[in-house]
């Protein structure tokens, strides 16, 4: 069966950040130099070819873009300045949009206005909730301080409501993400008409998913290990923050001023520091454009960084203002924190850049499944 060429695909791909997509003349240097490309899962050249030719089907069922961690060696050695690293990055954006069944992802990636509008919409919802809805139920600002002199945060942002909201949001995000992963699974594994993977293999290789989620061993194969370290630092901070906020909110969002050695405080400090460290490296990297992986920035890259940074900074402010007994500053910080965090989680995790937290480990898992596939 021959595959029909879609000549219009290129116009679509351009919106995902593909720059000079025809510069590549297929010498294969990129594939040869890539530390992650392996037999059976060769990239970037072949993926660039599919892209150039507009072979939509094979492109959408590719797992390889997720196996690339953008070390930039390919771009550095490309004789045609075709920038294979960024082409792979753009492909990941494109693939994210194809996994998403709502079509929102594509909208977010291809329209800045659309994305900003939704962010502002969610932010507005949060602000209205705190300024109008919650007060109408009796949760009001109070300048009263606790016995220890801290701000009474929980009376303004009641734990049960916030916790319930956290859970609702987590379920929505997880549902979207899982459905997208299922679509990813369908495209990469299920749709393949020639091979099949046994259930046992699915179970046997499942540990890879957890392992890769936790450690990102593939990232460490890229030459510069510092980025892997920074990323792991950030990612661990984020995970800790996520868990304490969603699962242990009553323990974490406390009005008490705990001693510095309390696990609640140093966990928070570790997570904050991890996030900040990773963010500083990424932001400075993208500003300086010295490293190839930071040289090209799509709107979605910046939005993600800016929102996460704002979230972290406002989080720090909440903490500082609260323990120093500055109620208004604390509330403003809290509302801002939530107004950034909510749209970030809702948009970035299921529909945009942040979805890679799921797609990458799953891609490794699916790759392993493909390797163990047998002919039907």
């Amino acid at each position, binding site marked *: 069966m*021959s*595959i029909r*060429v879609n*000549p219009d695909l290129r116009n679509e791909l351009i919106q995902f950040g593909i720059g000079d997509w*025809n510069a590549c*003349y297929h010498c294969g240097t990129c594939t040869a130099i890539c530390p992650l490309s392996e037999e059976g899962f060769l990239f970037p050249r072949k993926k660039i*070819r*599919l892209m150039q*030719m507009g072979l939509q089907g094979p492109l959408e069922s590719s797992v390889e873009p997720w196996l690339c961690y953008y070390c930039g060696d390919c771009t550095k050695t490309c004789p045609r300045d075709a920038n294979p690293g960024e082409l792979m990055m753009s492909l990941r954006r494109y693939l994210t949009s194809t996994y998403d069944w709502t079509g929102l992802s594509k909208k977010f990636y291809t329209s800045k206005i659309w994305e900003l509008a939704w962010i502002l919409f969610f932010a507005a919802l949060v602000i209205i909730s705190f300024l109008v809805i919650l007060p109408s139920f009796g949760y009001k600002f109070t300048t009263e301080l606790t016995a220890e002199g801290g701000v009474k945060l929980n009376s303004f942002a009641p734990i049960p409501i916030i916790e319930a909201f956290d859970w609702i949001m987590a379920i929505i995000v997880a549902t979207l993400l899982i459905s997208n992963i299922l679509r990813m699974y369908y495209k990469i594994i299920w749709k393949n008409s020639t091979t099949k993977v046994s259930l046992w293999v699915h179970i046997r290789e499942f540990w890879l998913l957890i392992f890769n989620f936790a450690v990102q061993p593939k990232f460490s194969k890229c030459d510069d290990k510092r980025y892997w370290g920074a990323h792991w630092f950030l990612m661990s901070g984020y995970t800790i923050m996520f868990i304490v906020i969603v699962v242990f909110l009553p323990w974490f969002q406390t009005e008490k001023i705990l001693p510095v050695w309390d696990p609640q405080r140093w966990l928070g400090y570790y997570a904050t520091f991890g996030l900040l460290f990773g963010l500083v490296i990424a932001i400075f990297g993208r500003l300086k454009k010295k490293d190839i992986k930071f040289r090209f920035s799509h709107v979605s890259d910046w939005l993600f960084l800016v929102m996460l940074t704002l979230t972290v900074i406002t989080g720090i402010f909440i903490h500082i203002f609260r323990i120093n007994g500055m109620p208004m500053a604390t509330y403003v910080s809290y509302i801002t924190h939530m107004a950034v965090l909510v749209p970030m989680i809702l948009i970035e995790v299921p529909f945009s850049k942040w979805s890679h937290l799921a797609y990458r480990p799953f891609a490794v898992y699916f790759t392993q499944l493909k390797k163990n596939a047998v002919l039907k």
Partner: protein
Amino acid sequence: MEEPRIGVYICWCGTNIAKMVDVEAVSAEVGKLPHVVLAKNYKYMCSDPGQELIVKDIHGHQLNRVVVAACSPRIHELTFRKAVEKAGINPYLFEMANIREQDSWVHTDRTEATSKAIDLVVAAIRRVQFHEPLQKRSVNVDPATLIIGGGISGMVAALEIANAGKKVYLIEKTGRLGGHVIKFDLTFPHLSSARQMIRPILQRVENHPNIDVFLNTEIRDVTGYIGNFKTTIRINETESTELRFGNIIAAVGLKPFDPSKIEEYGYGKFPDVITSMEFEEMLGTGQVLTKYGKEPRNIAIIHCVGSRNKKYHEYCSRTCCMVALKFVHQIRASLPSANIFEIYADMRAYGKGHEEFYALTTHKQIIFLMYDQQERLPVISQADRNDNCNMVIRMNEKLSGESIEVPVDMVILMVNMEAHENVKEVVHAIGVSLCGNQFFIEKHPKLDPVATTTGGVYIVGTCQGPKDIPDSVSQARAAAARILATIATGSVAVEVTTASTNEKLCCGCQTCVKVCPYSAISYNEEKRSSEVNEVLCKGCGTCGSACPAGAITSKHFTDRQILAEIEGIMSMSFKGV
């Protein structure tokens, strides 16, 4: 024949020869041979005193033959010929023995090298006894030039010669000048207008007082030789004119390959599968439209149609890749949003500005698809009714390894440049040869690419092989310069050591006629003998070897001379054990 009186000179070449060859022993040994009047050795025979020594001895000892044993005859044969000529002896009554490059420099045993030198000198002595005086000859050159073909090459060459004040007869088979270039819209890689370029040339040719243009005229037969050709041309089947000229430029050009031979492309079956030439004409109208008058949404350009394929032509036509890229710019100009597919086998961008042009074109949002010329050609078929296109191209895409189908509304076939069908008539008329691909063969592929092995006949432009406009024009100007140089000299020297036939011995078997690569031999029915045109002959001697009746003599390389040389070589130390 007068009794040979031979003078033999052994050169030391400083120490180059003397170090490895006992020059005294050699001269002493050969001095004893019959007919050898004197045998001397000297430090540098090629020096002025060395040459004077020969001249003096010729006068003093009434020598009539000279042998010099020194370096390779490829270096100093001419020097010594001139020296003996100066002393009044025919320069061909001289022979050289190569005892440096082929003796002293390659051997390490002095005894062996010395006996080899003796053998080589003895061979030369034996040979020179059978040498015959040969006379240098030259022919006058008629200042007019015949140019066959009124394309850009022919016209440029014509102007070059005519501007120098010399007569040109420009013969064009069709009814108009301009060749293929006049049909083009733009040229690569600068995207300048072809018509604007060629029109002024055309006007100058038509109005030049030194150029006689003959349209609708073909060349049937040319007689004569370098400097003195003659032909009768027929104009409109009624008038005929005799032309005389000294040189010929063949600029007969090419013809585009007929792609209907390639079944896969369905040329002739699908109205929107057109050749590059047809597309050029379409571009001339300013609109790119399908046969139904619609703007095509998807346009495929298939490269190497009839080229680089053993079934059609194995050679590369050199220009099509760039023309195909040029089309991209032209299509983009009128259809900015059309999808353009370049279906190619290899992208060849060898020339000045070509790679840059390719790089520039890759930014024009086109899709490159590579096919394997030898394995399977792309196949064009009618699209299904519910397809959103006119035709579908199915192919194995080489770089992805995928078998794909490409929706298209128009296909442009980049057809190969092939030799003109009536090229054989011209070849026959002017006496040049064709290579396997029916292109004219140049005299030397590297050092003399515009001349042919027939003196006074030059080949320019695409009849020599596929090429672009700058290459054609360079050749045209080069040939013109060569011709002007011979016209300026007024005469050309012709080969002396030619073949000649002995009518008394020739039996008329005609074995020799086709042996000659220069068509210098013809059979004279009246005399019942083959004849060598010594102006055309280049002296290779292969006819002499082919003649079963021993009627052809290769001057200066006669059987007798070579057999004497063999006997000489084997006569002394070299008899073996």
